[in-house]
């Protein structure tokens, strides 16, 4: 088990060195969430309600953009197979890829977190809980990004396909539009999206209240969905072997 974790960590370290400056990672992982956060803040909306959503957007885009760059690109160039030659399980490979996205997501979050903290004067309701929910959410987002990467073959199309999934999720998961304002037929879709749960968990930890999902359920679903995404990512790796 320790060997697997060590291997996963080394894969993550390598990915961060290799891909952190790649254009899709920088533009969609850092620039876009920052610009988005500023745009919403400048509109003067309910900052207390928006802040958790903006943090989630930063984390979401940061955590998923790295895997789009690393996995899709590596599968195209043949470098991904290198990882399958190492004496590490496919689960370890999936975890390693998720961890690089996880760390990048946290990096992407730092600026938005600083904006929320300093400029909006919103100190967290529960700092340790916020740290924990952010970690769980980042793991969930990054493992989802790894899984989604296997649906993309061409690096040129990676961001298009990713965004066609990310943007609807962003609008439907209580990040920037309250679920309570949705028409009835959209609400079940919101509850089916795992991101809604991580957003609600972050909301509770940051501002001390939640909209639609109690924090215990939100956190539990976030953790379970992280493990499920990771498991299915491992299955996709196995299936990629002809």
């Amino acid at each position, binding site marked *: 088990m320790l060997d697997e974790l060590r291997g996963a960590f080394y894969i993550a370290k390598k990915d961060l*060195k*290799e891909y952190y400056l790649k254009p899709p990672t920088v533009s969609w992982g850092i620039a876009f969430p920052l610009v988005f956060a500023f745009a919403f803040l400048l509109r003067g909306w309910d900052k207390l309600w928006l802040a958790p959503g903006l943090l989630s957007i930063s984390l979401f885009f940061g955590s998923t953009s790295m895997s789009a760059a690393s996995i899709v690109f590596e599968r195209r*160039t*043949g*470098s991904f197979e290198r990882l399958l*030659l190492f*004496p590490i399980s496919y689960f370890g490979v999936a975890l390693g890829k998720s961890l690089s996205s996880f760390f990048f997501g946290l990096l992407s979050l730092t600026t938005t977190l600083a904006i929320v903290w300093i400029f909006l004067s919103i100190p967290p309701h529960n700092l340790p809980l916020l740290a924990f929910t952010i970690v769980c959410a980042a793991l969930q987002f990054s493992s989802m990004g790894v899984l989604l990467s296997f649906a993309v073959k061409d690096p040129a199309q990676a961001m298009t396909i990713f965004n066609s999934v990310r943007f609807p999720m962003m609008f439907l998961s209580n990040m920037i539009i309250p679920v309570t304002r949705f028409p009835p037929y959209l609400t079940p879709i919101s509850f089916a999206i795992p991101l809604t749960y991580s957003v609600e968990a972050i909301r509770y930890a940051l501002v001390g209240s939640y909209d639609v999902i109690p924090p215990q359920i939100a956190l539990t679903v976030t953790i379970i969905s992280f493990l499920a995404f990771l498991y299915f990512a491992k299955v996709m790796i196995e299936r990629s*072997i002809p």
Partner: protein
Amino acid sequence: MDAIVAEDLTKYYDEFPAVDHLNFSVKCGELFGFLGPNGAGKTTTVRMLCGLTRISSGEAYVAGYSPLRELKLVKKSVGLVPDISNLYSELTCIENLIFMGEMYGLSKREREERARELLEFFGLIDKRDSKFGKLSKGQKRRLTIAAALMHNPKILFLDEPTIGLDVTGRRMIWNLIRKLNEEGITIFLTTHNIDEAFNLCDRIAVINKGKLTAIGSPADLKRKFSGSEVLEVSFTEKNAMTVEDISKIPGVIEVSRSGGSFKIIVSDPLLVMEELARRARSRRASLNYVNLRGADAEEVFLRIIGESYA
């Protein structure tokens, strides 16, 4: 114990047998060549042995372990150099090697020592801090081989190691392969370059359309498949015969033309000569020049795969 054993090794893609019931073994310390044209099944065989492609049926043992049941142990024992140099372009040479060492569980001191040793062996010590993406093709190839050796594997698989390299680069890689083999590493080399196989390898297996058609040392193969098998002819009338005409004669395996002469690889020289003379006469011409000689490596290879078409 043999380094590699394949027993009825088979790979199907849908219903197409890319590798068809291969049976062979590779001795420890041998430099074994897998020679065949493009699409013959060489890379698929290597990938099955290393666990990158599933085995459809049959069995294999690599360093005594089965890829079907003990894949992790196989992976610890082998290094694979694929046909593309696919290391990480933003990492430096030393960083790429260190990463390999990390993934194989080498300690920090072992990684650094081994990486330095390999960079020196492969003549890349001056490039240690250069990014992989900035290296020349030959340098990339050398580093890719070095990366496969970080964990001191017992068996090294080289898939088309000199593909895309110029003559100088190719010779350099050949010398490195010989040196590695002299140090006791079992080398399994796939190639479509006949010279490479015949010059480097202790034994060669010829594969065509997924099937093993011949196996033996270069000398054995030449002895077995050579003999008086190449006819060089010309006619009194330059246009008496065409390549197409000659290729239809029974016993002709391969024909090529150079100016007014033809080089014909044959399975039955007497039959072909008789038929050539008869057809030339029917076109009011005759044989002007005839030379019968032993086949060189390329011609041996063509003879081997030609027989597998029969």
